[in-house]
C-alpha cells in the first residue's frame, strides 16, 4: 500500500462515516453515531499511516505544500473532533465536522493540488517546520470545532442543546487559542528569527495570524470579563475561524504577489 492508496481509503472511510452520522442526525438513533465514531477513528488511523508513509517517502515533514498541509489539517480536524466527542459526548457535531473534513480532503485530492513529493527548499529545512506548522494547524482544527458548534448554537432551538454547544465552543477555543498562539505566533517568530533574522516583518501571513489572534482575544475578553455568551460569542468564534481560514488559504491565493512565503 502506498501513501495515495491509504489516503484514498481514509477518504472513503470519512465519507461512510459522514453518511452514518447523517442517518443518526435524521433518525436520532445512537447506533449511527457509534458506527460513525468508530469509522472516524478507523479513518484517522489509516490517514495517520498515510502521513507517516509520506514522511518516510519524502524525508521531510508532511506539510510543505498545499496538498500535504490540507491532508494534515483534515487529519488534525478529525483528531480534534474525536477528542471533543470523547470528552463532551456530542455526536451531533459529527455530521457537520465530517462534511468539512471531506471538503478539505476532496480539495487536497483535486487535480489543483500537485501531489508530487518535492525536495525541501532551503527555507523549509528546519525542525521548526514540524513545530510551527503542526501546532498551528492543530490549533486551527480546534477553531474549526468551535466554528461548527457556534453555527449549531445559532441554528439550535432547544435551550439545553444551545447551552451545550456554547460550552463546547468555548472549550474548543480554550484548547485552540493556546495552541494557535504557541504554534502560529511564538514558533513562527522563533523560526522567522532563525531563518530571516527578524521575528516579525508585517508580512500578510503574519498580519492575518495576528488578526485571527486578536479576534479570539476579543472572544475571550468579552466572554470571561464581560460575561458575553451565546449568540454574540458564537458570532465572534465564527469570524475567528474565518480569519484563521483566510490566514491559511486566502493569503496564499488572494494576497499573493505581495510577498511569497518561502
Amino acid at each position, binding site marked *: 500500500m502506498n501513501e495515495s492508496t491509504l489516503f484514498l481509503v481514509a477518504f472513503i472511510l470519512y465519507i461512510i462515516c459522514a453518511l452514518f452520522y447523517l442517518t443518526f442526525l435524521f433518525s436520532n438513533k445512537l447506533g449511527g453515531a457509534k458506527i460513525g465514531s468508530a469509522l472516524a477513528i478507523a479513518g484517522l488511523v489509516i490517514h495517520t499511516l498515510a502521513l507517516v508513509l509520506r514522511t518516510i517517502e519524502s524525508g521531510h515533514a508532511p506539510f510543505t505544500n498545499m496538498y500535504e498541509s490540507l491532508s494534515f489539517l483534515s487529519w488534525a480536524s478529525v483528531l480534534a473532533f474525536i477528542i471533543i466527542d470523547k470528552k463532551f459526548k456530542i455526536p451531533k457535531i459529527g455530521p457537520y465536522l465530517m462534511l468539512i473534513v471531506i471538503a478539505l480532503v476532496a480539495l487536497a485530492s483535486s487535480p489543483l493540488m500537485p501531489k508530487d513529493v*518535492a*525536495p525541501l*527548499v*532551503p*527555507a523549509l*529545512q*528546519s525542525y*521548526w517546520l514540524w513545530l510551527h506548522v503542526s501546532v498551528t494547524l492543530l490549533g486551527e482544527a480546534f477553531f474549526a470545532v468551535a466554528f461548527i458548534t457556534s453555527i449549531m448554537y445559532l441554528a439550535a432551538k432547544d435551550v439545553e442543546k444551545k447551552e451545550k454547544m456554547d460550552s463546547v465552543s468555548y472549550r474548543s477555543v*480554550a*484548547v485552540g*487559542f*493556546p495552541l494557535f*498562539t*504557541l504554534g502560529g*505566533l*511564538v514558533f513562527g*517568530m*522563533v523560526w522567522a*528569527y*532563525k*531563518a*530571516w*533574522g*527578524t*521575528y*516579525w516583518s*508585517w508580512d*500578510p501571513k503574519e*498580519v*492575518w495570524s*495576528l*488578526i485571527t489572534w*486578536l*479576534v479570539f*482575544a*476579543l472572544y475571550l*475578553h*468579552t466572554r*470571561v*470579563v*464581560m460575561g458575553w455568551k451565546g449568540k454574540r460569542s458564537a458570532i465572534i468564534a465564527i469570524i475567528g475561524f474565518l480569519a484563521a481560514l483566510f490566514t491559511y488559504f486566502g*493569503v496564499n491565493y488572494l*494576497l499573493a504577489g*505581495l510577498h511569497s512565503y518561502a
Partner: protein
Amino acid sequence: MKAIIRFFTSVRLAIVLLIILAAASVLGTLIPQGRSFEEYALRFGRLSGLFIRLQLTQLYHSIWYLALLGLLALNIIVCTLTRLSPKFLKTFRPQVESDPKGLLALKIKDRFKQTAPLSAVKAELEKTLEAAHYRLRATIHDAKIYLLARKRIWGIFGSDVVHVGLLIILAGGIVSGLGSVRRQLAFNEGQTLAVPGAGFELRLDKFATEYYPDGSVRAWKSTLTVLEQKKSFLTKIIAVNHPLTYKGFSFYQTSYGWNWDSPAVEIWARKKSDPSLLKKIKLKVGAGAPLDDKEQTVISVPRFIPDFVLGEGNEPQTRSLQPNNPAVLVEAARGTEKIYSGWIFANYPDFAQMHRGKDTDLAFELKSYEVGQYSVIEAAKDPGVNLIWIGCVLVMLGLGLAFYWPTWEIKVVLEEAQGKTDVIAGGIGQKSRDRFGAEFEKLMASLRRSK
C-alpha cells in the same frame, strides 16, 4: 481623574482597541505596504494622495497604529495594576470566614448533619480536603468553625502573566525598532569586509550552491570566517536556517549571484582550411590573445552575456543574471582589419556555424567559463529579541495557568446544632466548573460516609 482611570481600566476600552487594531491590520493587507508613489498612483488614482497622508501605505509603522498599540499597552498596565493588589490580598490574606447564607446561594453547595462532634468533623474534613490537594485555612468565631480550602491558587494570575508577557513583547518591539541594526554585506569569494559597528571583520571563504538530483536547489552555503585584528577567530558554514552568531551579531544567508564583470572563458578556435590547428585559448572578457597562426590573427572577447536574448532592434542583451544561456562575443583581427565578429554559445556549440563572419575559415567554440560568485549576507543585531522570547514564555505560561490551572475554592462553616454538627459548604470556581462540581460532590459524599 477618577473618570480617566475608569476609562483606562475598563475592559470596554480593550475591546474597542482590539476591534480597531484588527480592522486596521486587515486594511494594511489590502493596501500593499511600502511601495513607490508611482505604484500607488497607478493603482488607486486620486485616492493615493489621501492614503499616503493617512500613512496607510506604512500602516504598521504609522503614528496612529503605534498610538493604538501604546493605548492598548496603557490599558493593559492600568488593568493589571488595579487587579493585582486584590488578587495578592486574596492569595496571601484571604477572608476565611464566610456567610452560610452566601454559601447556600452558590450553585455548587451542600448542607448536611454529622453525628460526630465539631472537632472530629473538622479533623475529618481537613483530612479529606488535604488528601485532594487543597490548602487549608481555618478560624473559629462565635463557636463556629470556618474553613477555607483552595487548590491551584496561582491560576487566578494566569491572565496577568499573559498581559505582562504581552507588555514585555511590546517593549521588545520598541527596543528592536530603536536599536536594531541590519546591513546587507555583499561578498565576493575571498573578500573581507568590516561589519559596521561590530569591531570585527568577516571573510567569505567560499560560496557554493548544492543541488538535489532533480536539479532543484538543496542549499546555499557560505563559509564565513570571523577576523579580529586580522586574526581568524572562527569559521562556520552558514546556510538558510543556519545563521552564524558572534558577539551579538547574527549573519544570515540572504542572497547570492554571479559577478559577471569579467568572467574568464575558454575558447577553442579552429581553421577549416587547417584541420590540424586547434587552439585552446583561456582569457578574461575584455582581453585578447594571439591565435599563433601564419597570419598573426589576434582573438579577443569584448563581451559576455549570461542569459543571451535578442531584444528590440536585434540588440543582444541579457534576460537575467542567471547563467541560463551564456554567450560570448568573439572578434578576430589581423593588424587593424577586423576579420571576424560573432556570438558563440556555451549551450549551442553548433550555432556559430550558421553565422558567417567575414572570414568563414575561422570557427570558435565556447568550451567553458569561470565566474566568481558573490554571496549576500545580512548582518543583524537585534537588542529587543531576548525581551520577545521572555514575553513569549510568559504569554504561554499565563495561557497555561488561565486555561489549565483552574483555581477551586471550597468554603465550609461548621456549627453545633442539637448535639450534631451542621456542615454548610460551598464551592467557588470560575473555570472547569463541571469537573469542580463532580469533585465537590465526591468530597462531600466521602465526608458524609465518615461517622
